[in-house]
């Protein structure tokens, strides 16, 4: 039985849209210092994907992956913020 919430679908669609924007617009620009933020963002997008997938099949496995992605995203953002806050002003 497929159990997918609407919000998860919306989140996924918005995430894909955001992903395109990030890939097309920002990563081609000089925002390399936000690379850990991008990693965190990709991890969260992965979490959105796994959230949807866990409702379709292998619910336990994808649910674990989803929360692992949360942890990875948290780590990435933490490192990103740490590095950004440790540098001098531009």
């Amino acid at each position, binding site marked *: 039985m497929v159990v997918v919430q609407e*919000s998860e679908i919306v989140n996924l669609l918005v995430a894909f849209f955001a992903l395109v924007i990030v890939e097309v617009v920002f990563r081609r620009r000089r925002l390399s210092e936000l690379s850990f933020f991008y990693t965190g963002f990709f991890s969260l997008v992965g979490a959105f994907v796994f959230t949807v997938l866990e409702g379709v099949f292998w619910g336990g496995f994808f649910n674990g992956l989803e929360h692992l992605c949360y942890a990875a995203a948290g*780590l990435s953002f*933490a490192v990103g913020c740490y590095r950004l806050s440790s540098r*001098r002003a531009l």
Partner: protein
Amino acid sequence: MQNLMIVVFDGLATLFFAFAIYRALLIPAGRLDNFSRYLLVICLAIYFFVSGANVLEYAGITAYFDGLEDYFEILFLPCFMFFLFAYDARLEINRRNRTEEALSASEKLYRTLVDNIDLGVTLIGKDHRIRMTNATQGRLFRRDPATFVGKLCYQEFEGRKEVCGHCPGVRAMASGKAQEEITQGVRGDGSRFDVRIRAFPLLDAAGETDGFIELVEDVTIRLQTEQALRENEAKFRALFDLAPMAVALTDLQSGRLIDVNMEFCRTTGVSCRDVLGRSVVELGFYSESDRQDLLVALQQKGEVNGLEKTFMVKGQPRHALMFSRIIELQDNRFVLTVFNDITEIKKMEENLQRIARIESVGILAGGIAHDFNNILTGVLGNISLAKIYCQPHDKVYDKLRETEYAALRARDLTQQLLTFSRGGEPVRRSASVAALVREASDFVLSGSRVRAEYDLPDDLWPADIDSGQISQVVQNLAFNAVQAMPEGGTIAVSAENVTIGDHEASPLAAGRYVRLSYADDGPGIAAEHLPHIFDPYFTTKKSGNGLGLAICHTIIKRHRGLLTVESRVGGGTTFFIHLPAAVTAPQPAATAADLLYGSGRILVVDDEEIILEIAREALMLLGYEVETARDGQEALELYGRAREAGRPFAAVIMDLTIPGGMGGKEAAAKLLEYDAQARVLVSSGYSNDPVMANFADYGFVGVVPKPYHIEGLSRVLRDIL
């Protein structure tokens, strides 16, 4: 188990996000503006909340927020996008700020450079309107640089009404390359100054020519300096070239001539073009050892002053007085040498020494002649007296006459000695030139292979001459002719009367002259020698001293006459003598029968006892009463006493030269002061003394040259008494 793993994952995520929020708040403001910061914090807070909610949910704790996290998650993405946009915008702003700051710094640097550079800098558009100029340009033109902007460059900088024909900017725009021009700028006060302008094309962003940049330099002082240097160069070059001393610049090591002046070439007799680059040794001026000697002296003292050195010119040694110094030019060492060819000076010195020797001989000869005249006076006087005392038909009379003739010849000889010794003024009397020439020539030619042919007209005018001196001239000419014709020949001697008019081109003054020509048919004189034959010491004869013709020339000149020569090699030589004609007839030689008797008291002054005795006896024989004095002082005393006693002297015969006592000139002057009517005759063995020639200038009324004889004495006394 799975729930525990999820709790751990979300727990870690919660901690990480919490840490991230903490660090996000510490991100410097210059790196992250507040808006971006808040967006980031919101993003992180969403997942802090989601992770925390999940931990509670999977830990079995009451999930108060169950389901809410899904909505929060929806907020994350737009917030994160906004964050990225805001951050990107912030970065762009920062970039722009940095660019503007860099531009501002560059502008400041550029302005500092342009304003402080020592050149006037001006940006000028294609339309020649000034866009910008710097402070230096203002200083150069003595104006506020701001007043130039927007105006036409040719009006502001050169005071013109149209574009300058020489404008380097126009050329720079046309060629695309830098151009240069030196012209004159006009200052604000109207004064002009020299400027050097370098113009570069000014390109716009598209690479098209948009105008030009001018760099202006005040070169007034530089041009003046260059002009002064050029003038100095020209001045010193002229001095170098026209210096009367030879100047040479040679390389110290090689001895090669780097530069020489015209006098150097003239002195050494070589072409200036041929000597440059060649060494003095190669040219044969010095030997290498001579050059080395000079270099050693230069190295030791730095300079050489007044060194006399012999150098060779065309194989002939020349003497030089040399001044040398080592100089450095462009790191190379050279020898600057100035020298003077003193060969002629040394010859002149030798001549002067010879003249000094001759003068000393002349003084000796003059003294001998003077003494000899005194002796001859005694001889001739006694002969005259003896002739008077005997009868003309006596045999002794003839012997006396011959003795007298011989004594007169001796007198002539002393006359020549005096002429040689002093070259004094001739004592001119009216005399027959024909008789004198014939007698003097025959005297020389007798015994030689040369014969004289005379053409001496009877109506030849007498001339005012010193017979002794003119005889010497004729004898010299005859002697030269004999030497010129060792194998024999003929001398054509002729004379004629000539008159020089006022407007005739002649070195002679207008008047009447006796022109005597003396022509031999010898080998003649080379043309190059003719201008020099009257120069002292010029001779072509091995045994000659070069004085004969020089003395002749001097004698004739002192007679106010002229001695000239015409000669042609192989065509013989002719000398012409012009002598001033006399206005009076020649005085005939006196004889015993011509004795002129008189009366009166005569005072004879002489230091020679024999002369006093002869004079006393002769004058007493002539009827005069005689007193004698040994010098001028005694004569003055006797003259004074006689006058006071009422027995004054009718005449005084005063010897000109009295050793150790008052001479005739001084005594005559004092005597005339005492008695202006005194009649004083001058007598001297120096018959060609200037006083004798110009006796009237010294107050004398007549001359009695020694040796005098009784006939002449009687005539002179008759003339003045």
